[in-house]
């Protein structure tokens, strides 16, 4: 009976952990997206200095994000996102025209990370 209880408890922990990580990922992704959105709108309003400040904030948040989601997300997906986020600050300081495209790429990658984890019909099968 001890085995059954251990197995059932473990199974519960696994299910709870899986659901928790999904919600955690969604909330962290939303936070990341809102930061990027703010950078984009500040940059488009012409305030490069504030955009640079926000991009530094984004980098700090990104390091925390990466550490927490590395337990559940494949390294490859995070590496690609890391490269894209690292490009934002230099693009702002150089006022590079590719900034908007890079930001769109970051949005897409963030969404993709969540979609790959979401237990949809398509992902399961």
């Amino acid at each position, binding site marked *: 009976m001890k*085995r*059954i209880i*251990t*197995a*059932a408890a*473990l*199974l519960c922990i*696994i299910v709870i952990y*899986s659901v928790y990580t999904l919600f955690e990922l969604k909330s962290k992704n939303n936070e990341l997206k809102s930061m990027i959105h703010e950078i984009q709108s500040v940059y488009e309003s012409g305030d490069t200095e504030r955009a640079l400040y926000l991009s530094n904030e984004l980098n700090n948040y990104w390091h925390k994000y990466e550490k927490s989601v*590395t*337990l*559940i*997300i*494949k*390294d*490859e997906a995070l590496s690609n996102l890391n490269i894209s986020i690292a490009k934002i600050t230099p693009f702002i300081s150089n006022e590079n025209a590719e900034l908007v495209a890079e930001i769109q790429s970051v949005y897409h990658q963030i969404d993709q990370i969540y979609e790959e984890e979401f237990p949809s019909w398509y992902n399961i099968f």
Partner: protein
Amino acid sequence: MTVVFIRSVILYCIIIFSVRLMGKRQIGELQPSELAITILISNIATLPVEDTGIPLVKGLMPILTLVCLDVIMSWVSMKSRSMRRIMSGEPVIIISNGRIDQKKLHDLRFTTDDLLEALRTEGIFDIDEVQFAIVETTGKVSVFPKYADRPVTNDDLGIKNSSSDPPFALVQDGNIIFSSLDRLGLGKGWLDKILEENKTKLSDIYIMTAESPAKYRIIKKEG
């Protein structure tokens, strides 16, 4: 390299834990579902070790999920006969009254070579000696020989004796096995008395077995 090493150590611990959780079964006695899970686990376990890009948690989660499901399903099977039938199948009688059921053999995709080999494994070389044979859910063939070919037993010879448990190891390499002492209803005091009678020290004993307080054997360490 260190990452692979540490991951391997963690996986080793998790797999040992998982196998212990699954319970004691020998490979040859695994039920079909258990065999499938054992193979799956061994395959899944290699993924996070080989590819450090895969989070370790992602490698551990399917292992633990499979093991937990197996333990729970085996418990459900224990409680429900119909579930047992679904999970493990049913034993199939292939020889009854000395007659081979060819249809059943065909259904099981058992060739005559398989049948003869299984009988030989049971020590039967002549199919005429078999009264009854059954293919267990594990795939093992159990054989019941005809009356004339069964080994002679003590009962057949009229030898009367009381049955008793086999001897238990009470001391191994100078260490007392208290669980064996308890099983025989003996205590440390009895052991000390025996050691005194035999003029020996506990640390000098290689192995000591007993099946009753009066019937024990001491083998001393050599050299």
